[in-house]
């Protein structure tokens, strides 16, 4: 059985991550600080596994550790404790192998905004070793499938709406044909129509491209609609991990309980209250 035939796409084993306030400061700044440096436990001994071909949701308020978890899987952070495996490859020890298997779409579309979708995606394609000629055709094709007209392909991204930019971000991820796609709040800030289109795209991905998706969101309906399984993070700790139906059955007070009810039952607050209480930045 090859690595990619393993039934487990992502295995997170007792992973913890602490951020120290002021870690980026210089020696003089640190010396001059009046107060001791604060540390934040962003991810606290989280363990989970994602089945190949599943859409796995990570639900939580801002500051709950969702994005940190995604960054740990996408090799952008090194865990302090525990380990993360992607199709059996350790993200720290086999970083380059993992990088070839994944792609990530983050809440903020990370683009060179003065460049056009074509220029940004061509850059991405070359980074992933795709021939320029092949990439150009694929880019027009994928963007067309996402409803971006060919005349927009050469315009600077900064002239596009956020919904359009997010679609280009998803196109960029699709271009590299990742077997694991990490979607970090891909619909946050989108209008209802764009949100719906992106959600449909995620479902199509699973159906037609055999892509495993890890999706973070604080949108309960989105999680309910898309995910095969959902983990709930609260202050860095995983407080539940089940199918949407399983969560409602186990934690719901009534048969008609929604995921919002479940979230309140598990964390003691609604997601809006959690976000208001979450530290800024």
């Amino acid at each position, binding site marked *: 059985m090859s690595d990619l035939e393993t039934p487990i796409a992502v295995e997170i084993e007792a992973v913890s991550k602490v951020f120290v306030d002021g870690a980026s*400061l210089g020696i003089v700044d640190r010396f001059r600080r009046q107060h001791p440096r604060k540390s934040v436990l962003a991810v606290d001994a989280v363990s989970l596994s994602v089945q190949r071909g599943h859409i796995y949701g990570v639900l939580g308020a801002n500051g709950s550790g969702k994005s940190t978890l995604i960054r740990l899987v996408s090799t952008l952070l090194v865990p302090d404790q525990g380990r993360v495996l992607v199709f059996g490859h350790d993200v720290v020890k086999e970083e380059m192998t993992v990088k070839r298997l994944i792609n990530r779409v983050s809440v903020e579309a*990370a683009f060179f905004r003065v460049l056009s979708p074509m220029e940004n995606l061509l850059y991405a394609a070359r980074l992933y070793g795709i021939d320029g000629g092949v990439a150009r055709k694929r880019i027009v094709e994928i963007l067309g499938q996402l409803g971006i007209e060919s005349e927009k392909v050469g315009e600077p991204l900064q002239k596009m709406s956020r919904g359009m930019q997010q679609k280009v971000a998803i196109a960029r991820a699709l271009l590299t044909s990742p077997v694991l796609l990490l979607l970090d709040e891909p619909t946050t800030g989108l209008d209802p129509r764009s949100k719906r289109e992106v959600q449909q795209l995620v479902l199509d991905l699973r159906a037609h491209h055999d892509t495993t998706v890890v999706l973070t969101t604080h949108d309960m309906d989105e999680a309910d609609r898309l995910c095969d399984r959902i983990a709930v993070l609260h202050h860095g700790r995983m407080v539940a991990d089940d199918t949407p139906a399983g969560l409602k059955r186990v934690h719901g007070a009534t048969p008609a309980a929604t995921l919002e009810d479940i979230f309140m039952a598990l964390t003691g607050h609604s997601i809006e209250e959690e976000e208001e209480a979450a530290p800024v930045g």
Partner: protein
Amino acid sequence: MATVIQEVRASYAFVERNINLTRRYWGWEIVFLLYSIVNSLAVTFIGAAMQQITGQKVDTSFLVLYLLIGTLVWSYLSVVFDAISEMITWERWEGTIEYTFMAPVSRGTHMIGTVLFAIVYGIVRTGVILVVVSAFFHVDLSKADLFSSTVLLLVGSISFVGLGIVAAVLPLMFTERGSQMTRVVEAVLLLVSGVYYPVQVLPGWLQVIARISPATYVLEGMRLSLMNGANVPALAGYLIPLLVMGLASIPIGVVVFGWAERAAKRSGTLKRSG
């Protein structure tokens, strides 16, 4: 072989991306180019005016060429240094650093692409400045050995690339002040390297620093080559230190960069700007 092709493609990704960014930011490019031309002209006019300023007989054409070499070589070296040392700052500012660092590309490939663009961009830009400034002054290159000066500039580029990579580590390690630190490094190089004057006029302690600056060797060698016609063997005393500095600073820079990248991934400062 497939891996090599992939790395070449990836390396070209950075060249093409930077060409596209230069094209899209054309307004700023014109402003910076104009500023550099005016700066070169202003400095060179000091040489042209020296006889009038002092009221004494001065070899004006010598002085003009002396200052012109300084301003053009510095223009080239500083562009190469900036393009490499700011590769992190620039990506942080654009918000793309995480995407680039998540791609399956070795940091060596990333740097090769950045360096290739920096050198070609530096040559083109300095060429434009040379053409414009030459229209204002009579530049006497009758004694120049253009082959040896080209060799010296290429070897000097290697050592400046190494210095740029080492400087690029600063924004990676210090998200708040790193890019300012690279500016300080550049300013010190400008002061001590004899861009507009011989390093012998500097205080003793600054002359010590001048001897570890690759720009000092490039500038002194270029003047010997372009003003006195020194050939490659005659420039050995400049080429050898430059080669040694380049061959030492590039691997050191790459290793330190790798270490800083891992540290940034541990501390979570890869993306944060504060």
